[in-house]
C-alpha cells in the first residue's frame, strides 16, 4: 500500500523531471559522461584540417585540453610527461587530440600559426596539431573544466574515462613519478581487456578560459 504510493510519487517526479528536461533550453552545459556516448565534435586543427568524432569511429581516442600558460599544463609538458604518454599510445595506434578552448583574448588562445609553433616547441606528439576550439563549442560539449582535462573514448564511441590526468593535484613536476596516472591505467587496462578501475575523477588544473 505504502510502497505503491511511494513509487507512484517517484514516477510522477521522474515524469516531471522528463518534462523539465525537454523544456530546458539546450544551452545547458552538457558533459562527456563515462559509460555514455561521446558528444560529437568537428573542429579545425592548426594545420587547417577538420577533425570530427566520426573520423575516429572504431578506434581509441584520447582528448586532452591544453593551455600553454597554465602551470599544470607546464607541469606535464615541462617534465615531458604528457609527450611521453602521447608517444607511447600513438605507437599502439591510439589517437590523441589536444584541444585549445581558450577564447580569443583569453589566456592560452593561439592563432593557427602560433599554434603550429607551440606544437613544435612543446614537442607535441598528438595525432594532429592542436584543435582550435576558440568558440568553446567542443569544450562545452565535453564539459571540459580544466587544463589538462582528459577524456578517453573507446572504439564504440563511448566515453570510458573523464577527469584528471593523475591523482596528484600538485603543480610541482617533481610529484609526477610518484603519481598514479589515470589515463595510462585506463588505456593499459582497456588494451589488456580488463575493466577500468577509475573511470572518473575530479579534474584538477586551471580553468578552461572560455
Amino acid at each position, binding site marked *: 500500500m505504502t*510502497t505503491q504510493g511511494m513509487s507512484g510519487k517517484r514516477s510522477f517526479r521522474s515524469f516531471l523531471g522528463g518534462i523539465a528536461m525537454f523544456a530546458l533550453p539546450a544551452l545547458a552545459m552538457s558533459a562527456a559522461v563515462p559509460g555514455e556516448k561521446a558528444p560529437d565534435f568537428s573542429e579545425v586543427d592548426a594545420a587547417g584540417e577538420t577533425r570530427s568524432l566520426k573520423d575516429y569511429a572504431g578506434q581509441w581516442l584520447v582528448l586532452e585540453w591544453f593551455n600553454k600558460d597554465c602551470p599544470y599544463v607546464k607541469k606535464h609538458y615541462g617534465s615531458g610527461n604528457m609527450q611521453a604518454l602521447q608517444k607511447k599510445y600513438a605507437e599502439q595506434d591510439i589517437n590523441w587530440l589536444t584541444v585549445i578552448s581558450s577564447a580569443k583574448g583569453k589566456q592560452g588562445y593561439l592563432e593557427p600559426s602560433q599554434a603550429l609553433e607551440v606544437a613544435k616547441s612543446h614537442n607535441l606528439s598528438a595525432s594532429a596539431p592542436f584543435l582550435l576550439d576558440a568558440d568553446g563549442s567542443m569544450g562545452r560539449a565535453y564539459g571540459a573544466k580544466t587544463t589538462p582535462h582528459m577524456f578517453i573514448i573507446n572504439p564504440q564511441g563511448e566515453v570510458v574515462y573523464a577527469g584528471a590526468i593523475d591523482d596528484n593535484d600538485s603543480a610541482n613536476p617533481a610529484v609526477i613519478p610518484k603519481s598514479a596516472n589515470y589515463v595510462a591505467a585506463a588505456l593499459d587496462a582497456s588494451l589488456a581487456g580488463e575493466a577500468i578501475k577509475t573511470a572518473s575523477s575530479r579534474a*584538477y588544473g586551471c580553468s578552461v578560459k*572560455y
Partner: protein
Amino acid sequence: MAVAQDTASGDHVKVRWLAPDTFGPGEETIGFYFEVDPGWHVYWRNAGDSGAAPRFDFAGASGELGDIQWPSPVRLPIEHLTNLGYEGDVAYLFSATPKASRMEIVVNLEWLVCKVDCIPGYGNMTLSRPVADAAQWQPVEKALRDRFAAQVPVPATRDNFPWIVSNVAAATDGDSLQLVLEAGAAEGAAAPAVFPLDGGLLTAKAPQVEESGDTLRYTFQRVPGAVLTPTTGFVVSDGEGAWQLDDIEIQAAATSAPTANPTPADSGQPLWLLVLAAIAGGAILNLMPCVFPVLSIKLFGLVGPEGEAAGRLKEGLRYAAGVLVTFAALGALLLVLRAGGAAIGWGFQLQSAPVVLGLILLFWVMALSFSGLYEFGHHLMNLAGNSRGGSFVTGVLAVFVAAPCTGPFMGAALGAATLLPAYGAMAIFLGLGIGLALPFVLLCAFPALLNRLPAPGPWMETLRQFLAFPLYATVIWLLWVLGRLLGDSGWLIGTLLMLVVVFAFWLGRHQFRGSRWIAWGLVAAALLMSFGAANSLQQSGRESGSVPVASEQSWQPYNRNAINQALARKQPVFIDYTAAWCITCQVNKKLVLDTEEVEALFRANDVYLVRADWTDQNPDITRALGELGRNSVPVYVWYAAGESEPILLPQILQVDMIEALFDDE
C-alpha cells in the same frame, strides 16, 4: 636566527606563522597565515571544479603536530566553474605540542593562488620559539588565530549540531545527490551553507536548496560518471560556526530489496537446523501471551460436552491444518513481497492500523460474549468448538496473533527465511507452523491427557467467564499498539468503536421496533468511520514522515548517521530493536533495559543508546534488521568501543548479559 625563513611569499601571496612568542608545555593551535591580494583566492581541502589545496609538507619538528585544520570555505564562482576556498586572507591551522626546550618546525609549502589565471607558489618556512611555563601570544596574533579557529568545523555530534541529518540519498541512475537536514535546535534559522568534502564525487556548484517546513533538501550535482562511494562527508557552515559530517552513509534513493547481507551467525547454517529451530520457536510460541487467549477458546471447546474422544484427533488435525495453511499463505505473501522488492518484515500485519482495529473488534466481541453479555458469543464458541471449520479458524487465528511474539529461535529462522531461496523460506514457515500446532495435536492424540480434565459441569460457565479476562487484556494491549501507531487518536477511535459495539448489543437485546436495524446501522457506520479514520491517519502520518518516537531519557531514536558518528568517535553503541506490539521486547525492557542497574551501567560506560522503534513500518529499520539477517524484533545489537562489528545478544535478555558486556573489557 633565520628570520628570513619565518615567512614565505610568491606572486600575490605572503605567508607567515601564527604562533606564540613562547610556547607553553601543552598543546597549542598555531597556523600559516596567508595574506592574499584582493581578487585572488587560495583553496580549501576540496578545491572544487579546478585549482588545488595548499600542501604543508612537514620536514621535521621538535614536537607533535596535528593535521591541518581547514576553516570552512566560501564558494567562488569563476566563470563557468565553482571553486571552494578563501578570498583575501586565511589561516590554515594545526596543533603543535612541544617535546623539547624549543619548538622547531621545518615545512615545505606549495600553494596555488588564482584569480582567473593561476599561479603556483612554493616556499620553505622554519619556526623556532622557546618553550616556557605558559604560552605567550601577541594579542593581535592570538585574536587572528582565534578568528580562524572559530571557522574550523568541529565534528558534528548530537549535542552540538543544530540540525539533524535525516538522509543522504543518490538515485542510482541519476546525476545528483541529496542531503536532507531537519531543523532540530536550529528551528527557524536560515539554511546553512553546505560544502562537499569529496570533490571526486560532487561538483562544487552551489546545491539547489528546497525548504519545506523544518526540512532542508540540498541537491548536489555529481561529477559525471563518478562511482558512488558508500559514505561521504560535508562541512556545514551557518556563517558563525561550522560542523563536519563525516562518513554519512549514502542510500540509494530507490527502495530496493533488502540487501542479502546476513550476519556470520546466520550464514552457513544448514537448512534442517534452521527448520528445527523454527519448530522449536513455533512450539515456544504457544507459551507466549499473544497465543494463549486463542488457545483457551479452543481448549474450552474441547472440554465441552460435545467433545468426543474420537473427534478430538480430527479437531487437532484441523487446527494444525489451519495453522499450516495460514503460515504457508503468510510465507507465500512474504515471498511475493520479497520478490516485488518491498522492504517489509515479519509482524507487518500488526503494523497496519486497520488490521489492529479489526483485531480489537474481534477480541472485544469475543470477550463480551465470554463474559456472558451476548449469546452470539456462545454461538461463536460452539462454532469454534464444533463445526468443521471451527478448529481450522482457530488455527488461522492463532497464527495471526502469534506472529509478532517472536520467541527465541524464531528470529534467526525468520531472518534466514528472507534470504533463503523460496523453498527454504517456505520450509521455515511450515516449521514454525508445525511447532505451533504440535502441543495441541499431541493433546488431541492422547486422550488420556484430556481425560484427566474434569467432566463438564457448571464450572464451565465460570471458566468461560474467566477466559474473558485474557481477551480483555489482549484488547488493552492492541489498543496500546493502535495508540502507538496513530497517536492519541488511536485510543479514541478504538474505544469509541468498542462503545458503539456494546451499545449496539444493548439495543439489539431490547426488542422495541426497529432496534435491530438501528443497531446494525450504528455498527456499520462506526466500522466505516473508524476504519477509514485509522487508515487515513496512518497514511498521513507516514507521508509526513512523523513517526512518533517516545524519547525516554537517554535513549535516542534510530538514526543511522548518528550511530555511525558514535562509532566513529569510538563510543560504544547499544541498539534496541523493538516494537510496541512485541511482548518479548516489552518484557526485556521492563525487566532488564530500563532497570536502574542497567541504566547506571550504560551511563558509567558512556554508551550511545538507540531505541529503534519498529512499531510503525519504518523502512530504515527494516533495512537495518535485514542487514543483521533478521526481520523480526527484538534484536539487541552491541558495538563495543572502537568495534565496527556488532555482537547480537540473545532475544531474552538478562541483566548479567549486559553486565558481561562491560566485564570483557
